[in-house]
């Protein structure tokens, strides 16, 4: 299949040129973060999607990369690129140590190990004053100059391109096939001559290298790193955005991670949304209204009587509160509720999307984007192609 030129040029224009036209140069800090999130998503995908394990402590992977690069650049006075390389190397090394544990504990227990590793890193590891500057944090100068994020965005894009290339080559070489085999059936993998433990460790190393690069880019985009940047909340956000993007789908994960990162920007751009979020007496009835409508819809489609009744009640109630009639006594009560922080929105919206992903579209966002990607890559829609479900999920064979 030969890729189509026009759509690829359009894609390049969207990524390279459009941001310059649409956004202020101040917004490029956030756009750089979107690219960093995309790299983090790809890093997690190696573990969850390819190797079939899990990491709930990926914020620690990213944090180690961030502090490493910051230390190398500010204390050792090395150039930015050395910082990124050091972050990649150390990220890979620490991931392999954690991976060594994965060989002994599996499943839910390993998830708990990664979870506590993340918390341990934030509380203890990132508190080592000599390296991380303790609670005060460490400076990480932006290589393109303070506040000059436009060129930095392009640097981040270059690294995303590198990660995408490595990921693509890995999955089309023996490593990718080995990871697929050991994820599906380690016994079969071993009997085909694949050293299962070694390849699991290699998967961790690759994931760690990607996360280290992301961490370095995160640090130097921020200008400053503190241990509080790498909370458990962030680690969970990483997992959610990766799953919503669709495991094993590079396109889906990049899009989903980038969207996750720019949600604050979107909220700011929609007029009135930010101030509305700060007023619970308005937002709560709206949420109830939407939930009620969804319940009615589901009730009608699936024939659930209870869902319909509850849904109608919710709609009626919230409509009454929102209407100019003002149900007496309700509004002051609602005002007592805490305001919704815009950044919290992601942690509400993403789990909802995950549930939807798992219920109705197991392939995530990537599955929805797949026909487009295939078309761009030069695939033709064919009537003789046979049922779609007989095909491998990602068929990127040349």
């Amino acid at each position, binding site marked *: 299949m030969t890729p189509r030129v026009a759509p690829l040029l359009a894609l390049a224009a969207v990524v390279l040129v459009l941001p310059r036209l649409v956004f202020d140069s101040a917004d490029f800090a956030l756009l750089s973060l979107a690219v960093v999130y995309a790299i983090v998503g790809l890093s997690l995908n190696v573990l969850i999607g390819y190797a079939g394990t899990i990491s709930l402590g990926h914020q620690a992977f990213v944090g180690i990369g961030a502090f490493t690069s910051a230390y190398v650049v500010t204390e050792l006075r090395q150039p930015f690129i050395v910082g990124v390389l050091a972050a990649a190397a150390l990220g890979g090394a620490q991931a392999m140590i954690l991976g060594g544990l994965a060989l002994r504990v599996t499943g839910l227990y390993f998830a708990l190990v990664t979870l506590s590793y993340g918390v341990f890193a934030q509380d203890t590891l990132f508190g080592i004053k000599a390296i991380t500057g303790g609670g005060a944090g460490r400076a990480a100068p932006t290589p393109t100059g303070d506040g000059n994020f436009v060129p930095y965005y392009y640097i981040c894009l270059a690294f995303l391109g590198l990660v995408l290339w*490595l990921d693509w*080559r890995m999955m089309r070489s023996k490593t990718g096939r080995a990871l697929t085999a050991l994820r599906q059936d380690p016994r*079969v993998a071993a*009997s085909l*001559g694949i050293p299962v433990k070694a390849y699991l460790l290699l998967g961790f190393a690759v994931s760690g290298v990607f996360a280290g690069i992301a961490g370095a880019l995160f640090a130097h985009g921020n200008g400053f790193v503190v241990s509080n940047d790498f909370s458990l909340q962030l680690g969970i956000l990483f997992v959610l955005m990766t799953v919503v993007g669709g495991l094993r789908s590079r396109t889906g994960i990049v899009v989903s991670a980038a969207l996750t990162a720019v949600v604050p920007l979107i909220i700011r751009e929609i007029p009135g949304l930010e101030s509305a979020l700060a007023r619970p007496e308005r937002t709560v009835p709206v949420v109830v209204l939407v939930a009620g409508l969804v319940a009615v819809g589901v009730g009608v489609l699936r024939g659930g009587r209870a869902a319909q009744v509850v849904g109608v009640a919710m709609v009626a109630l919230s409509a009454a509160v929102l209407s100019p009639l003002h149900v007496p006594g309700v509004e002051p009560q609602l005002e007592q509720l805490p305001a919704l922080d815009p950044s919290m929105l992601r942690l509400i919206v993403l789990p909802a999307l995950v549930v939807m992903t798992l219920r109705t579209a197991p392939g995530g966002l990537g599955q929805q984007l797949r026909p487009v990607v295939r078309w761009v890559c030069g695939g033709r829609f064919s009537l003789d192609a046979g049922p779609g479900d007989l*095909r491998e*999920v990602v068929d990127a064979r040349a």
Partner: protein
Amino acid sequence: MPVLEADGISVRFGGVQAVRDVSVHVGEWEVVGIIGPNGAGKTTLFNVLTGFQRPNTGRVRFEGDDITGEPVHRRAALGMGRTFQNVGLVKAATVLDNLLTAQHMTVGYGAVAGIVGSSLAFERERAVRDEAARLLELLGLLPVADLVAGRLPYGLRKQVELATVLATHPKVLLLDEPTSGMGPEEAEAFGERLLALRRELGLSVLMIEHHVPLVAAVCDYVYCMNFGELLVEGKPDDVRSHPEVVRAYLGDEAA
């Protein structure tokens, strides 16, 4: 010299003696069968031979070398190819990808070279693809090359599994119930294919098999196990009519 040899193998799971003091050996070019009722310890013995299970006592030798402590993938590299009772395939991958996976040991480039996309890796990948196509053609599986392995009908899956095992260039094939789920004609055709493969590739075969006519037709030597022990061994016809074997399969009254 025997290709594969097991000496005094015993395996105990807690209070259950799954295999007790069993010795088998497979000579060059030999097709050897293991029969016995369900729960006789045949698959456990197989797991010991292929490295999935450490024996409590006994040694396993491959071409004279002691491999008792070697991990599964090392034994595969030495030339032991194994099929599974419930079909050992990467089920979500296509048939072609399964054959590529099976050539893991012979691709001829390092893992890192593959990840960074070295030109050697590109070149070798093409050779691996050609080899996969050649094997699929040989076994008449080219029409299903692009289908997902796990969705194929059972009999076809078994054939694909055999193709993947052959792609690892084994010297000895260990087949765990290769004809389960097949009808008598299919089983007979399988037996002929097995003998043809032995002729063409110089393979030795050890197989667990319930299909007695097939065992009688293709095996040079047969072991019969019951309750973890070797009951009888010998030429297929002798074993088949041995009163102990008849009793193990049909109960006391039949004998």
